[in-house]
């Protein structure tokens, strides 16, 4: 008998559902004339954003990982292996015996330290998928002890990140900064860990 996994997804809806409440069918009204869509976002819902106070992701306690069926994770997706957030570089399926059930063999790279990790999971089981975030910050300063000072969207500074260890990246940052260029650093974060992963220069194009 096959294991029935709990469904990992919830349909995202605008109104929160009471437990056990079924999501009503959304049926579109067939337009008589094509509806005039204005991409200026002038709907009343958008103006609500001013009234809502959103906690930043780091504080919100939102799940750092989400369950997803192994069979649905593809190459290029993310997966947690041995508690490390990884990017999948290869997926192959095999079976537990010819008449058994399918299992997925994942080969993945740790997104922070580049180490190769592998895992074999039955396709119907749930795996954890990490919430990987990328944010761009402007570089303000590099401290003597190897930390960077970054400007956040809200105008505050973020000072808790060290310079990256990757030589090429490090070199570009140091040189660019010394040359007085305006640099944007991309910071990747997942499962409570953060790292600078890219540097871009403003201008050009």
């Amino acid at each position, binding site marked *: 008998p096959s294991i029935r996994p709990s469904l990992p997804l919830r349909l995202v809806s605008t109104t929160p559902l009471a437990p056990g409440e079924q999501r009503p069918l959304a049926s579109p009204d067939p337009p008589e004339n094509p509806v005039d869509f204005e991409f200026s976002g002038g709907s009343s819902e958008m103006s609500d954003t001013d009234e809502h106070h959103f906690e930043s992701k780091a504080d919100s306690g939102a799940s750092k990982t989400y369950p997803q069926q192994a069979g649905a994770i593809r190459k290029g997706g993310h997966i947690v292996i041995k508690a490390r957030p990884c990017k999948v570089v290869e997926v192959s399926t095999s079976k537990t015996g010819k008449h058994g059930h399918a299992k997925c063999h994942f080969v993945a790279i740790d997104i922070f330290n580049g180490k190769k990790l592998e895992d074999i999971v039955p396709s119907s089981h749930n795996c954890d998928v990490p919430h990987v975030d990328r944010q761009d910050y402007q570089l303000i300063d590099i401290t003597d002890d190897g930390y960077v000072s970054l400007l956040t969207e809200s105008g505050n500074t973020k000072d808790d990140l060290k310079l990256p260890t990757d030589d090429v990246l490090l070199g570009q940052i140091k040189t*660019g900064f010394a040359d007085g260029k305006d640099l944007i650093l991309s910071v990747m974060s997942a499962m409570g860990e953060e790292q600078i992963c890219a540097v871009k220069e403003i201008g050009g194009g």
Partner: protein
Amino acid sequence: MHILSAVILWIEPPNVIAESIRNGGSESEFIDGCHVLLSVASLTSSSLFDNLLKSIRQYGTINLLSALTSEAVKSVLDNQNEEETWGSDALDILLETWNVILGEACADKSPMSADGALAASNLFKIIVESHLKAAADSAFEDSDDAEYFHVSVSKRDEQLALYALIARAAADTTIPFLEQLFSERFARLSQRDVENDPTRTLEELYWLLLITSHVLTDSGEGETLLIPEALQAGFTNVVEVAQHPVVTLSWSIINFSRQCLDPGIRGRYFSPRLMEAVIWFLARWVATYLVPLDVSREIDSVGRHGSQHSRKLLNSFAWDNNQGELVLDFVVLMSMVALTTYQGEIELQTLTCQKLLASVVRRKHTCAYVVQLDSWRDLTRAFASGRSLFSLSGRLQRSLAETLACAASCIKDPEASVQYLRDLMGPVAGCLVENASRSDLKSVAHQPDVIYMVCCLLERLRGAARATQPRTQKVLFEMGHTVMNSLLTLLEVYKNQSEVIYMILKFVVDFIDGQAVFLDGKETSVLMSFCLRLLQIYSSHNIGKVMLSLSSTLRSESQSEKYKDLRALLRLLTNICSKDLVGFLSDSNIEGSPDIAEVIYVGLDIVTPLISLDLLKYPKLSRDYFVLMSHLLEVYPEKVAHLNRDAFGRITGSLEFGLRNQDGDVVERCLTAVNALASYHFKERLGGRGGLGSQVMESEGSNGKLQESISSHFLRLLLQLLLFEDFRMELAGSAADALLPLLFCEQELYQRLVHELLEKEQNPTVKSRLALAFHNLTSSNNLSSTLDRPNRQKFRKNLRVFLGEVSGFMQIK
């Protein structure tokens, strides 16, 4: 005949010879003997072939063939040693011999002799028994062999199809034989102890289903599948439907399959692998035996006896007593089961969507029936608003959406057809719109489950877009229109998630692909405005930030991500600029309609800075890019010619790069593009206008940087390529087309270059030959100074002759 008696010793008696080969004897004579049989079979009719041996033996040649083939089969299956190939080599030859004989027997309409049929029947029994044994023996092996994984593998299919031919030659015995084997195994499964492991039986059933499917049906993607002729003609003694072996075998298998709907039984022995075989069998059976009524009616029933009667019977039995309808209902129910309870079984689910359901939906008569079923309605509802089908992989969701949407075309009532699609895709579109309008979108957008949901929805939209047909075009446009604004929102929100961006772009590409030929002026305008906004937003995220460096873990993947994005973008631009769409825009007076040129400019503005020469090394990307470029330059040379300096420079730079590409297709497109540019320039100048005069190209000259016109630059380049670099002759035509207008534009330069070339040539013989060749190039065949077709054809001839003449001595330099 003589040949046969000469080689007979090499191949007879088969079992003795085979044994001696296994013990180390040489196999070459045996193989040669088999080759002889094949050659003889190709030269004679089947009855003559059979009779050949009878003059020196008491049995016919077919008997010998049968015995030989048995030996070959046994040796292949017993012997797992890969180095010894004589068995499979012999088998290939012998099966081909059967193919020839049986093919002829069919064509001649001369049935095989009684002992020939008996020989075939015996052979088939041995084949099946050997394979069943091999299957049972291997049931517990874990193999990495890709062959065992899939129900359909071309090499194995070929072999099974040849076995099937043999079976059909003696169908009146082989079909009941198969049925017997099935019954035994079905009984084994249902009567066994709960503890006993059914794996061996399941593996045997797997193989039986494959071979039986080949016997009962032919393959043929998308064709109308006919019931195999040998089966239609082969049962002359059958009077009652219930007696017909094909009928009883079919129902036996189908009734067994029905048990998979029972959860208890399903869990006990309907393994994913067995389900795959069943589904594959059903897909082919449904496509073959549910014969459209008008076809079966054509088959006259002449009397109650004879082959005509059994032929008609076979063509109509499936629909008797509502059985056909019940089978179709079962097919839908089984599909639901496969898609919802076999979680993670991608192979099975893919077969369900792409073989079984597709086979039902693609045929009008079965589709028209199926769309009215309750079970179908349950399936579409589960898809539209249920959760269970969201766990399917993205590609499957796309497939399923396409299959379900296709069914709309078979609903006769136009209003009902439209409503069906609205019910199917409305919730999908609505869900996307609702998600995109969430006030807290930014804070939840990057959670993996939301990304997954968004991607699933996009895949579904893509699938539906692919099912666009004349009857469904308007309502699918409506679907696309509904989500346009949301897509723009998502493009903004997910600017750092290349997976989502890619999916959005792919949807738009597929959408335009499906819709382009049908759109009216107003719809085109709406679509263009959307595309323009799309491109602008995409561009704003990607321009202005020059990527300096990436961490090593990101470096390689980023390149391939950018590459996928760009390919989708290129396809999008190519589709937008398709003539179907453009025709409307230039004619229409619709207010607010964007100028096609604007769309192109924006598009090119985005694309050209992002396409580095590095990226152009990816073959697929470079092909897509040059398809777009050559297309744009052919259709809108004037618009491209007036791009700003940098943008135009990038384009010509990439053309230069492309002219030296490995891929001949790319080179050809670049030549087309150069032709377009040069021809435009020539025609403009002829009309007294500037043409490309304002555009210059910089290149390194002997005195530092030179600036020269486009035409002179490409003239030099092209001559260089033709004379001094590897040039493929098959591209000579395109090269001629590019060279001719360049010559006209730069006559003075051309004369100078030729002169320089001749001066450099030391060898007097070579020099005079070269001079003559050049002379002929521009004056043979009454070449004139126009770009009309006849003149172009003349120049193509001239160039081919020229290249042939000079290739000998030019390359050596």
